[in-house]
């Protein structure tokens, strides 16, 4: 119970209906024509494509409907296994499936379904357009529970807050051999630095001033190094403490190449003190200090792009991340951790805020994803040797309005403002692209 599994992911907008996946499936499964393919690609009548494929459901109706015990959920792989010698061809499984994932093919003489090729799906390997992917993100969630949670239960973050999700994941991964700095912001505000005389974390955690987070961490790390101890020092800071008030100390530490892992959780404002605008707040955003009225229509100036500023410090490692893409974040966290042993690592995580941005608390991860898919927040990483590398495709973005319309703080935007935001996003991507040196493999830690 409770185990997560690898799965085949379909990015329909990338599919051009070439059929290579179908051919690969037929070949892998020893069929004769497209009818024996377990994956079916279907034109949607409007130029796009849709998919019929077994979803390997958790509560699988095909399994429930099977009268002969021929279909079972495999507890190790998550695949719905089909046993030829138990199947009676009653087709009741096809009644249960709402996706066309298990189908009777007359010339084969029995039902067929995807078995994920034992963990190496041929269709995914054959797809030339990144329309199919094999997500192994489940491994993160399976191993997550085995690692110790470094924070107390019952932190009082707002409903739908992704900062809490982020810090719990991050510190489980980093482990107990760490010291955490949490300058004023939502993260200490939710109780991580302690509340009512109780401690909020299982690692040493302290609450520096907004101005001196990086300086204090630098001193702590240097002290440990002098003692001959390898202790990770981590900043879990908000955008106010990073982009505005803490910037001088951050810039100095980056310039000196202090051995710090600095994670900025950017919710684009001072959200725990009443949703005031910060240097990171984007153009057009409603905040309590950039209201919407007869003359003012949200923030008038453009937000700072701090990860780019940090890249210009030539830090040993700089990356942007979003929790909609957890595998990407974990890969970057690993590299940042490794880098921070010998240099300055800066990770900028975009953190949509249901309370301050005005969207429903159930939509946080959707908003994260929309930010990435519209190229509003391109995900990339940088090392001085390797240059910049986009870690997710930036081709064929969704229109920026998909993102803006989902968020209340942009509800008032006028067409000219939307046009300006689109322009900013295009310019940002264009500028970032100029730092790409090599589109090859992930650069090694330096």
């Amino acid at each position, binding site marked *: 119970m409770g185990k997560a599994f690898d799965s085949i992911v379909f990015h*329909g907008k990338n599919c051009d209906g070439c059929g290579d996946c179908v051919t690969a499936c037929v070949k892998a499964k020893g069929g004769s024509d497209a009818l024996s393919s377990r994956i*079916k690609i*279907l*034109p*949607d*009548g409007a130029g796009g494509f*849709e*998919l*019929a494929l077994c*979803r390997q459901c958790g509560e699988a*109706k095909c399994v*429930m*409907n099977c*009268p*002969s*015990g021929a279909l079972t959920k495999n507890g190790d792989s998550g695949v719905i296994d089909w046993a030829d010698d*138990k199947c*009676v*061809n*009653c*087709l*009741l499984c*096809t*009644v*249960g*499936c*709402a*996706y*066309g994932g298990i*189908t*009777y*093919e*007359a010339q084969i*003489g029995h039902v067929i379904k995807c078995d994920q090729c034992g963990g190496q799906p041929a269709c995914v390997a054959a797809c030339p357009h990144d329309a199919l992917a094999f997500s192994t993100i489940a491994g993160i969630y399976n191993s997550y529970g085995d690692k110790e949670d470094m924070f107390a239960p019952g932190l009082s973050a707002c409903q739908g807050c992704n900062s809490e999700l982020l810090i719990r994941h991050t510190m489980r991964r980093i482990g107990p051999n760490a010291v955490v700095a949490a300058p004023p912001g939502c993260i200490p505000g939710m109780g991580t630095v302690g509340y009512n005389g109780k401690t909020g974390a299982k690692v040493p955690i302290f609450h520096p001033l907004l101005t001196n987070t990086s300086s204090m961490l630098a001193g702590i790390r240097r002290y440990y190094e002098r003692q001959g101890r390898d202790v990770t020092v981590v900043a879990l800071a908000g955008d106010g403490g990073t982009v505005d008030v803490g910037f001088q100390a951050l810039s100095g530490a980056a310039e000196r190449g202090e051995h710090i892992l600095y994670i900025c959780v950017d919710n684009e404002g001072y959200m725990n003190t009443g949703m005031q605008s910060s240097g990171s707040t984007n153009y057009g955003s409603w905040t309590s200090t950039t209201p919407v009225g007869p003359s003012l229509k949200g923030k008038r100036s453009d937000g700072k792009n701090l990860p780019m500023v940090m890249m210009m410090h030539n830090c040993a490692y700089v990356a942007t991340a979003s929790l909609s893409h957890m595998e990407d974040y974990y890969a970057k966290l690993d590299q940042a951790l490794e880098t921070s042993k010998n240099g300055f690592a800066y990770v900028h995580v975009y953190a949509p805020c249901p309370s301050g941005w005005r969207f429903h608390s159930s939509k946080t991860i959707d908003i994260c994803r929309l930010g990435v898919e519209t190229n509003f927040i391109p995900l990339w990483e940088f090392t001085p040797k390797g240059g910049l590398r986009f870690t997710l495709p930036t081709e064929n973005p969704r229109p920026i309005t998909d993102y803006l319309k989902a968020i209340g703080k942009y509800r008032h935007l006028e067409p000219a403002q939307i046009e300006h935001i689109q322009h900013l996003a295009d310019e940002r991507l264009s500028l970032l692209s100029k730092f790409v040196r090599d589109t090859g493999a992930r650069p090694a830690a330096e």
Partner: protein
Amino acid sequence: MGETNYLVVGSSHAALEAVHAIRMIDAKGSVALVTRDAHLPYSPTVLPYVVSGRSKPERVALRDEAYFKTMNVDFVRGATLVGIDAKNRTARFEGQPARKFDKLLLATGAQPIIPPIKGLDKVPFHVLRSLDDALGLRKAMGQAKRAVVLGAGLIGMHAAENLVEAGLAIGIVEMQGQVLPGYFDAKASGLIEKAFAAHKVTLKLGRKAQEIKSGAVVLDDGSELPFDLLLVSTGVKPELGYLEGSGVATERGILVDARMNTNVEGIFAAGDVAQAKLFQAEGTGVAGILPAAVEQGRIAGMAMAGDRALKPYPGHVSLNTYTFFGQQAISVGAGVAGPVPAGAETIERADAAKNAYLRLALKDNRLLGAVGINVSLDPGILWQLILRKVDLAPVMDRFQADPLAVGRVLMSRLWR
């Protein structure tokens, strides 16, 4: 007297799904699954294949003892429910001590109807509802040469096919003018009848068995069908004798609401024994099919355990899949077996060379039902299109031309 928080009587699909749903919510409450059967849980649907030998009787179990141990469920076999005291929350069993319960699920299924045919009580005959029935029929089949099947429903037709494959000469008697009435229209049934006729099965449609003599069935037209093996498959109905004096309301089955609760709070019913809401018609009915038993059992279990994710039962949609001599038949929804409902339109296509036939029934741009013989269809998708009342207007022409592909596109969009 034993005491149980959740007492589930019966051991097929509805009962098993209920137990699963209860344990999803309540890991600690005591659960007992009590069945009159002597075997591990199995599905009545698999029985024709036990008769044919395709399914080994020792391999048809839907759960094993290890499952019940893991789930901490007290699995009791060989205990027949004989009475319920709703006031004192007690169920009485034959061969087992009575049990007190907090919540009770009746998933006792249905039993064969034995028609009042003169002489039937004088001859040995078979029915096919339990694993023991199947093993008995399989044994008798080996020694018989000629069989007569009374009733051309799914069980009768499956059994007849198996008897043909075993080399017996077969006669089928059906009161109505076609095989599988209720699921298929006359044209669709015609294709099925053709396949049986090609295998030298004698079909006596629109005929009643007047009398059973030793070794022959006498029909209402005076003709006789000789047999040395007789199978009675004229339908099933729930046996409700154990409810006498309990105050639990019944008609053809046990009346339940959208949570599968009977008129007595805390006593539930699901599966072939339950008379629940219909999706495409007013009133209630006994669904009598496996997918409905699964749905109802799951809902009953969720209601018993107080699962707040419970969505009320939307009602039963007629569904069936049937394979015969390597061919396939699918029936989903309404308006495809009998007369066309008012305001509905039907689309028919046939391809005689391929023995293929498709009939779609549509009303107000919504799918009412579909029948396909040797046509690829996804019954699960068609079921969802009916349940969700999907507006097909934007895709109507394409849907009529290719319900398979367009249905898949519509459902694919619901999934990222």
